[in-house]
């Protein structure tokens, strides 16, 4: 099994991951957690409850919006939807992560760069 991802890295990647999931379609807390778990093959373990303060902060920043719907069970369920501002923020974050990834690759066995 690969090394577990550190808590700091999990925290730093939470926002782009949530925005990426919402880019695929509207979703709710439990489903977001399940998606992360499945896509990462269980490598990324979030404390379930920590997702909600992040979602609320994203909503406050205007990156996502929420609405109430109904689950199959009849329970009230809060769904999140990505806003245009959120799509822009996701693009910016993806560029930043790509840059970091390239940098790491270059510094660890990639082609030598001249400064």
């Amino acid at each position, binding site marked *: 099994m690969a090394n577990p991802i550190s808590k700091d890295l999990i925290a730093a990647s939470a926002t782009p991951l949530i925005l990426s999931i919402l880019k695929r379609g509207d979703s*709710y*807390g*439990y489903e977001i957690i399940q998606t992360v778990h499945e896509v990462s093959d269980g490598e990324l373990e979030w*404390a*379930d*409850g*920590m997702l*909600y*303060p992040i979602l*609320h*902060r994203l909503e*406050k920043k205007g990156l996502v919006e929420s609405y*109430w719907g109904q*689950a199959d*069970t009849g*329970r*009230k*369920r*809060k769904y999140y939807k990505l806003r245009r501002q959120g799509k822009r923020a996701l693009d910016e974050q993806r560029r930043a992560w790509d840059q970091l990834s390239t940098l790491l690759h270059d510094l660890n066995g990639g082609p030598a760069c001249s400064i």
Partner: protein
Amino acid sequence: MFDLEREVQAWCARIHRGGRDRGERMAELADHLYCQIDRLLAEGHDEEEAFRIATSRMGEPADLAREHAKNLTGWPKARAILFALCTCRARALDDLLTDKARARWIIGVSLFFAGAMLVSSWLMRGMEMGQTGTYVLLAIWWVPYSVLLAASPCRERSENEESSAAR
């Protein structure tokens, strides 16, 4: 007998202690718990066990409550800060304040006490025993000030820095 609905509501209430939309946030958290519990029940766990596992996956209630408190604004936030102050919960206070708010906190407390001293000096000017009165007031002010200082996040932070420097 174990009452699942009551337990879920009580658990959610521990996380969300205030805020205008407390009811909605509790409902959201409860929906998550029920999703997890339904899954665990389908796997063969009983209700009590499913509840215990589901809540443990959510994380520590105190940590979650702190995270959610960061999102509070206006009066609910002021109330949370006041509660943290009154109970000398420096850690909770630290979580509620950003670096900017921390600086404002120090300046605010200092200005308040400086102002209070100036006003009392002015009120007691020319009074007999005025000087003694000022000293007495100073001593009285020192008590709440010490309490506030004890609860101040800055004190806890500097203590942590000192202890880590000593290691």
